[in-house]
């Protein structure tokens, strides 16, 4: 079972047969060597970010931030990431059920 997935601007076919819940265009998934391993739990991600945000609500903290800012960090995932760990998170753009039936 294949889905067309956009990875850092490149579209390719990814096997989504291991996912336990269905994916639809717009979903974000974790890909590893051509297979989708997991679909992002948006609620978990949002809860975590909300909690982290709440951690630093005092003004002093905000001032301190300037000392830590990683201003020169490249913000987008680059192709280097793809080569580095072969695992990355990206979005399902399209889906085809065509030629590849899982054999399990």
């Amino acid at each position, binding site marked *: 079972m294949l889905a067309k997935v956009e990875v850092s601007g490149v579209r390719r076919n990814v096997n989504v047969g291991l996912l336990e819940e269905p994916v639809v265009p717009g979903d974000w998934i974790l890909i590893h060597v*051509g297979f989708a391993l*997991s679909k992002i739990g948006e609620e978990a991600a949002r809860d975590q970010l909300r909690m982290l945000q709440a951690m630093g609500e005092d003004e002093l903290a905000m001032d301190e931030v300037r000392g830590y800012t990683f201003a020169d960090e490249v913000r987008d995932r680059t192709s280097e990431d793809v080569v580095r760990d072969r695992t990355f998170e990206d979005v399902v753009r399209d889906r085809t059920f065509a030629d590849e039936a899982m*054999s399990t």
Partner: protein
Amino acid sequence: MKYVDEYRDPVLIANVAREISRAVAPGRHYRIMEVCGGHTHSIYRHGLLDVLPPNVELVHGPGCPVCVLPTGRVDDGLSIAERDGVILTCFGDVLRVPGTRGTPLEYKARGADIRMVYSPLDALRLAQENTEKHVCFFAIGFETTAPSTALTILRARALGVTNFSVFSNHVTIVPAMRAILDSPGMLLDGFVGPGHVATISGCRPYEFVAREYGKPLVVAGFEPLDILQAILMLVRQLVAGEARIENEYARFVSWEGNRAAQAALETVFAPRPTFEWRGLGFIPESALELRPEFAMWDAERRFAVPGVRVTDPSAAQCGEVLKGALKPAQCRLFGKVCNPEQPVGALMVSSEGACAAHYRYAERAAEAEPLRGTEAEPVRA
């Protein structure tokens, strides 16, 4: 990018870094192992050592498949490539791992048909397109990668592709963690658990770390914020005298893991009685071999590989670095004889290797932390 940029947010990173500094007990040293090579890379790449308080030390673990692959297995795989009519396929980082008589890339330069693939499915496709040849896939990786190999073998069987085989070097992380926890003089306080492995295995297999060894473990993602938050969770547990398994990476990891992937692993693979890990030696039931019913696709059965054992060059101290006994720069060969262009040891080959990460990013780290000096002190193991 969704949930990538957010996990690199400098404001949140600063919040968490400050919380870690607040949480640590002064006068106490925290030695935390990040098990996974992906974490090691991310820690160096994002300069996370710079934002940690000096009494929080990160020890780089064995979770880099290329780094723990012994030279003898590379030689075994290359012996397959030397046969007539064989195309050997592998992931890009395997191409640069030195065997006794050169790397796969050098074998390729000498005429062997060795090709890089992105997915084991690409190797299978190559077999379907080259029916007059035999295509062997040199498989490496932990539980994250092994299900992909398993599904590819199941697909080969379903399609009746018989000119395809797998040289399995798949390893499993739990036995390696046990070996580290059982090593004499073990000084680790807690673990950042491997997030991608846990998408498959879930958190449950790590429960023994807390239950049997009394150490906390936090399964973590790979963005800077993930890793720092996991460290914060560990420090808080340690300060409170707790040892629990927690999941920082809940957006991708469940407690039970991916059952479809686990089932595929179970169908195709069985644990090997023992397997050699570079630096850690032989560890029982720490690797996966194809079950007998898949002998047709098992390169080791089809080709009777020599099964050589090769001792690592004695000057290279990969083993000590892998166990956390030495920091990368403390190895005699680091940066001189052994560098990413001409790696002697496997830790310098993969970008997930502690030595390659340290080589690539250490200058920046050294500039940023002139007062720390911890890099020069060996961790007693």
